[in-house]
């Protein structure tokens, strides 16, 4: 088990600083991608093509951050040879940065689709369903990054469970789109774009879930990828119990 405090307790101040720096960079990158997703959604829902173009243009920022973070992490691995929780932190940061970068790519895609959709007829009710799905995804991304900042494994597990809801919403959206296309084939082009947007949002949810998994790995040293969340929860509970018992014994 580690806590946020423990990052700053190395004998080497330089090492403290390096780990804090790279972790800070990852969270900044996360903040940037949150903003990108938000703007892409606004561009889409409000039919704002200028904003959509802006989102497309801004993606290079996230790519640049990913390269910088990877660079920093390889330097730490080579120079510090971190072990245990430090090693897990560096690994988790490398992996999370990849997922955040992919989220950025999806946001860019939504931005591009928003530009296209802005040039077509809008349905009478706007893009309510996408707005709803997007809201869920935005919250999940924010919470996933938050658990990374706080190194809160239990919260990470709860956030990971949200992915299930997003997948269900995405399925509902797909069904609705199929109905629209069957109702009037002239809708197909537009509705396909809407479906791609939904698909991108759903993918962003998957990446957020991955980040939650890295948080659990980072905190508990337990790799829960490709296991059910219920199994993961049991494993975390067992770890927590063992830690509590050890603490009691120490007292």
């Amino acid at each position, binding site marked *: 088990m580690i806590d946020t405090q423990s990052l700053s307790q190395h004998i080497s101040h330089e090492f403290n600083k390096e780990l804090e720096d790279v972790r800070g960079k990852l969270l900044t990158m996360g903040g940037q991608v949150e903003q990108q997703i938000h703007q892409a959604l606004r561009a889409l829902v409000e039919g704002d093509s200028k904003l959509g173009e802006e989102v497309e243009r801004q993606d290079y920022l996230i790519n640049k951050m990913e390269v910088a973070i990877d660079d920093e992490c390889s330097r730490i691995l080579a120079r510090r040879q971190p072990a245990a929780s430090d090693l897990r932190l560096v690994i988790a940061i490398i992996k999370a940065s990849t997922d955040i970068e992919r989220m950025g790519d999806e946001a860019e895609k939504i931005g591009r689709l928003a530009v296209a959709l802005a040039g077509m007829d809008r349905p009478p009710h706007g893009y309510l369903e996408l707005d709803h799905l997007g809201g869920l995804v935005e919250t999940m991304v924010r919470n996933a990054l938050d658990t990374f900042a706080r190194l809160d494994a239990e919260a990470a597990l709860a956030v990971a469970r949200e992915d299930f809801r997003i997948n269900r919403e995405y399925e509902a959206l797909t069904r609705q789109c199929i109905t629209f296309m069957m109702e009037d084939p002239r809708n197909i082009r537009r509705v396909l774009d809407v479906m791609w947007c939904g698909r991108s949002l759903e993918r962003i949810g998957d990446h957020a879930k991955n980040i939650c998994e890295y948080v659990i790995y980072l905190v508990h040293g*337990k790799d829960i990828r490709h296991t059910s969340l219920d199994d993961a929860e049991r494993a975390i509970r067992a770890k927590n119990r063992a830690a509590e018992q050890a603490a009691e014994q120490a007292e």
Partner: protein
Amino acid sequence: MNDIPAPQPAPATATGPATIEQPIKASVRHLSFYYDSYRAVTDVNLDIAERRITALIGASGCGKSTFLRCFNRMHDLYPGNRYEGSIILRPKGLDIVARNVDPIGIRMRIGMVFQKPNPFPKSIFDNVAYGLKVRGIRDRRLIEERVERALRQAFLWEETRDRLGDSAMTLSGGQQQRLCIARALAPEPELLLLDEPTSALDPVATANIEELLSELKREVTILIVTHNMQQAARVSDYTAFMHLGVLVEFGVTDQLFTTPREKQTEDYITGRYG
């Protein structure tokens, strides 16, 4: 000696039960060691896996070298030192630290290499042959065979085959250390103890020794004390972390260096103040 039971898993401690899926070469049970009244090692329970490398790590003064030296009864050289508990050497079931066991007999079966290379002021050949002669081997052919084998095992044969008569002092530091390993290997020990074997060597000589260790473990059980945690992580199969004379955690090296169970271990291997 025949009534000693089959190896039992080490008793569960605060660190959880030690799990070794390998035949066990030595079982340490409730071992404490005293320099007169000062207890330097406290109630250690540990199994040493056969033909594997077990590393002992810990800060200076944590008792790891003291613990290692119990294995060849080196502490008997000074009066007032005292062992409690047992170290059972498998498969024969001999208790290394039992009072009635002759330490000289133990040292005949267990080889040791120290921090600083300490070749005898003799020829390369005689250095390696020394242990054989002490053991009463007189057959020249046999001695030559065993010397060559030990030098080959220590990856020193190619470098020294044409100069076996030269003084061992003409070798470089890294070669001298490999010579000391060859000297320890020649009598075919059951257990090889290494006390910081590379801390006086440069990185290349260190890499050579580490490579040698990973080859040697096919044939010999190795117990190594090292200050260099990365070295323990690189070469060992099992790692034991000691602190203030107590075994804090013992586990498979991969696990101990990625997900240690104990906070003390975590603090030590990540370089935090504990």
